[in-house]
């Protein structure tokens, strides 16, 4: 082998370009015993970026529970997988595309969808559903509307073309996202256990096949770019944002799904962050072997590309496969049938080194271990202070009568109908969407079985800003509650942790507290975290984002016919409040409405009670006792009832005098109606189920209060609200409309 030519010590500017600190550089030199050359420096810069190496969050993430009887694949692969019965595994993951979306919303979001789809079909699983969790600044600001509409169009543009339904997600608007929007995409797929494919290279002499798009100069340094604070110069980094080709992705997906489980297909790995560098290194690292890539064999979109550019390009819609020599021709034949180009670009060998060749010359040679996990852990000096907690001042009285407050809440951008968004997404392709977006969790049946999956993404950053640990625990609770409201048993979590610059002590503390909050809730419900993603440096000179924990939850329904929705569907059914009579207004949308910000102490959560309430709902649905179940979330009790009315096209009559008497809270009516206390559902059921439900509630120690009945054309809360359904609908449906 030829020696790799060493270079002189890089300048500060060269280090900044690859986002390495001087200390990290020195650590690298110590590890490899020489100065790296420019390509090696670029490779290590990408692989040691926060985006690829998790150097800040790794020690904290180890606190998450990741095991359980259903876990087939925990964190560390392209996606996690849990057993769902019938010989199948559900494969799912959530990932951020915040930085690119802030610069170029359409392509940033589109390629985020493309990337998460590849993570799923790379494992041999057919994607069944997409979800997106979005955060923007206030919608009445033109730039925020531009970002919001661009992101929604990009998600639709990509997902609709590929033919995977977008069935759910959420969107919130808050000033903390003005400079840094959050775009998290989640994908859920299903695979037979025998076809589950891993990204683990093996077998000296096996070949490395690069498939899909030709490699261009797009997206170079994308991973590094995603790991620094956005500033005024970020606009000029537009070339670091890639452009998606969903049609190519569709063909790639079909071909890869044909190949999954075939003999001779040893491993599959998509090209994402850090392009060919990241994929090759990951394949070798997981397999404990070496990999050699010859950039001269890589098909290019442009002439004159250097080895550096080829290795660090983030051109989309590309896959790397490890195949045996005997099966190479057959595998290439499958790709050719889909009109996909494939190049044999490298080889696997035993010694764990990452070698890059340019024809006859070796241009980089690094130990795999150093490249992938050599990054020194960044342990910012956490202050570990108690989070400042405002003593809750008494909530101000609403300036409006309760009925009008309800209408204003329904029209609030954080609560109102998302129909305008989800009707621009194909949410039905695949013929599996049983519960459409707009309720608690979407329900997608698993083709060829009686099973269905309930999927939801949740996270209330307002709570997290006020108390990171509690906010994160509540995100898990709410996701599990949404899934339980359909009758599904939660079986696994994927999480996306979006934070500001972790080098600031308070951000690092919030990250640590959030992970502890997630872990605590997961343990209480016995749900493992099987995959996830961390997005740090969502920061700007004017301030960073609030801690934004997004929980993607998957639940299983054994008999799809036994699912439940949030809609009041039959007149004369009874309505009940399940769970505590809460009146907590801290961090609520009500406070945001009446005083401009949701301050105070966020709602408390009793994880044991939460677990009991959710189990009760699932049991009652499985027993066929409930006609609807809807969790109380933003906007509280009154908004939850209004949403069930709107979904079912039916009014309701509800009395709250007894609740007020029992709660004896000074917040009184506003607290009962609009408080966001946790662990609560609004349920409806036929009269004949009342006795059984009562019995069940006392056996399961779950508070159960009959409050009214379904019917009519108005929502009446005695003594407080009396509004025709048509007015509720008008307020709710117009919430996200652009100003005329």
């Amino acid at each position: 082998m030829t020696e790799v030519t060493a270079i002189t010590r890089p300048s500060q500017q060269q280090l900044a370009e690859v986002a390495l600190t001087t200390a990290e550089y020195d650590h690298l030199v110590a590890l490899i015993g020489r100065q790296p050359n420019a390509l090696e420096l670029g490779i290590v810069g990408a692989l040691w970026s926060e985006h690829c190496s998790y150097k800040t969050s790794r020690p904290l993430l180890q606190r998450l529970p990741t095991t359980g009887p259903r876990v087939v694949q925990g964190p560390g692969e392209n996606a996690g997988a849990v057993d769902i019965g019938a010989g199948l595994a559900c494969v799912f993951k959530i990932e951020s595309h915040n930085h690119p979306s802030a610069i170029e919303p359409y392509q940033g979001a589109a390629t985020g969808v493309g990337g998460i789809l590849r993570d799923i079909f790379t494992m041999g699983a057919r994607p069944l559903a997409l979800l997106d969790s979005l955060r923007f600044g206030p919608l009445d600001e033109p730039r925020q509307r531009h970002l919001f509409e661009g992101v929604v169009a990009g998600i639709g543009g990509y997902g609709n073309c590929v033919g995977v339904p977008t069935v759910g997600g959420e969107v919130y608007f808050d000033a903390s996202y003005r400079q840094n929007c959050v775009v998290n995409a989640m994908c859920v797929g299903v695979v037979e256990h025998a076809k589950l494919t891993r990204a683990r290279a093996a077998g000296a002499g096996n070949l490395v096949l690069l498939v899909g798009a030709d490699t261009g100069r797009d997206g170079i340094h994308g991973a590094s770019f995603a790991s620094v604070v956005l500033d005024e110069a970020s606009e000029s980094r537009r070339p670091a944002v890639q452009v998606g080709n969903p049609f190519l992705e569709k063909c790639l997906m079909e071909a890869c799904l044909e190949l999954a489980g075939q003999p001779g297909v040893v491993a599959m790995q998509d090209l994402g962050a850090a392009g060919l560098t990241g994929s090759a290194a990951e394949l070798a690292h997981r397999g404990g072997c070496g990999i050699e890539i010859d950039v001269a064999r890589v098909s290019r979109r442009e002439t004159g590309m250097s080895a550096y550019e080829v290795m660090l390009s983030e051109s989309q819609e590309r896959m790397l496969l490890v195949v045996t020599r005997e099966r190479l021709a057959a595998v290439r034949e499958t790709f050719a049938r889909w009109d996909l180009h494939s190049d044999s670009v490298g080889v696997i060998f035993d010694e764990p080194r990452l070698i890059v060749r340019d024809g006859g010359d070796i241009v980089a040679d690094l130990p795999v271990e150093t490249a992938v996990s050599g990054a020194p852990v960044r342990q910012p000096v956490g202050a570990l202070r108690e989070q400042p907690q405002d003593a809750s001042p008494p909530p101000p009285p609403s300036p409006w009568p309760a009925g009008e407050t309800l209408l204003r809440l329904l029209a609030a951008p954080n609560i109102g109908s998302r129909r305008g968004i989800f009707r621009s997404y194909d949410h039905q392709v695949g013929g599996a969407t049983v519960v459409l977006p707009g309720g608690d969790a979407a329900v997608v049946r698993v083709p060829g079985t009686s099973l269905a999956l309930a999927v939801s993404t949740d996270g209330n950053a307002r709570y997290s800003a006020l108390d990171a640990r509690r906010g994160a625990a509540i995100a898990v609770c709410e996701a599990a509650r949404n899934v339980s409201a359909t009758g599904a048993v939660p079986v696994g979590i994927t999480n996306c942790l979006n934070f500001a610059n972790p080098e600031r002590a308070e951000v690092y503390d919030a990250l640590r507290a959030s992970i502890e909050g997630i872990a605590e809730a997961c343990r209480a419900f016995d749900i493992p975290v099987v995959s996830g993603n961390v997005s740090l440096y969502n920061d700007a000179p004017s301030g960073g984002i609030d801690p934004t924990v997004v929980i993607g939850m998957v639940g299983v329904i054994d008999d799809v016919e036994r699912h439940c929705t949030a809609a009041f569907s039959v007149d004369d059914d009874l309505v009940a409040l399940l769970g505590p009579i809460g009146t907590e207004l801290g961090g609520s949308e009500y406070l945001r409405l009446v005083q401009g910000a949701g301050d105070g102490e966020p709602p408390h959560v009793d994880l044991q009670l939460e677990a009991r309430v959710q189990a009760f709902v699932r049991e009652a649905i499985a027993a066929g006792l409930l006609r609807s179940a809807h969790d109380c979330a933003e906007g509280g009790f009154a908004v939850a009832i209004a949403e069930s009315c709107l979904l079912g096209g039916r009014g309701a009559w509800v009395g709250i005098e007894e609740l007020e008497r029992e709660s004896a809270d000074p917040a009184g009516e506003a607290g009962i109606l609009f408080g966001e206390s946790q662990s609560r559902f609004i349920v409806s059921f036929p009269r004949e189920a009342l006795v059984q439900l009562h019995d069940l509630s006392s056996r399961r120690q779950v508070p159960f209060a009959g409050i009214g009945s379904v019917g009519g054309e108005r929502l009446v809360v005695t003594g407080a609200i009396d509004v025709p359904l048509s007015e509720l609908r008008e307020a709710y449906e117009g919430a996200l409309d652009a100003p005329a």
Partner: protein
Amino acid sequence: MRFGIAVFPGTWSDRDCARAVTLAGHEPVMLWHKDRDVKDADCVILPGGFSYGDYLRCGAVARFAPLMDAVTEFAAHGGLVWGICNGFQILCEAHLLPGALSRNQSLQFRCEPAYLRVETTVSPFTSGCTQGDVLQIPVSHGEGRYVADDETLDMLERDGRVALRYVAADGSAVGARSPNGSMRDIAGVLNQGHNVLGMMPHPERASEALLGSDDGMRLFESVSHAVRHGDSFANIW
């Protein structure tokens, strides 16, 4: 009977159509875009999707696929051809149907329930319905606004070739609720021989009550009845 289901690169309703065909008790046969025959199918479905990415114009590339020569010939001999969504766009591009599908009036992709009034039962696709029936069948497209010149539209109306029309749920005029702003609210069009139907909505998605509607199955059942009884609609009118 056999339903041939075309698969172009970028087609995504192929498996949904196959499931609906199976539910109707028939055999689906996939037809690859590079194939040059329709494999003895009794009816060929051109399903929804983004054939070849729809990058030039929806359906504009697919019409040149080798399979389309076979489909054109099959249709010329009276074979039943059913274009759904992207398939309708392909049929217009291939001039097997008049008119064109342009960008939705909203300029947005729309995936939502639609209501279709059966305008004629003189076709193998609608013979099992009653004229005036309202079917709930969802749409999902960005370019589904049916356009043609007045002369063509008049001719289609006069010859009973408007098969399906968008209406409100109660059967009244759809007005501003049209999913795409199609001229004269046209949702589905027949060729002169009534053996070729193009429609934007997705009957295969309305194949089970569990999915919200099974009205789409009435169209599949019409086709199987027509094939079984060798019904000919070309010379009825």
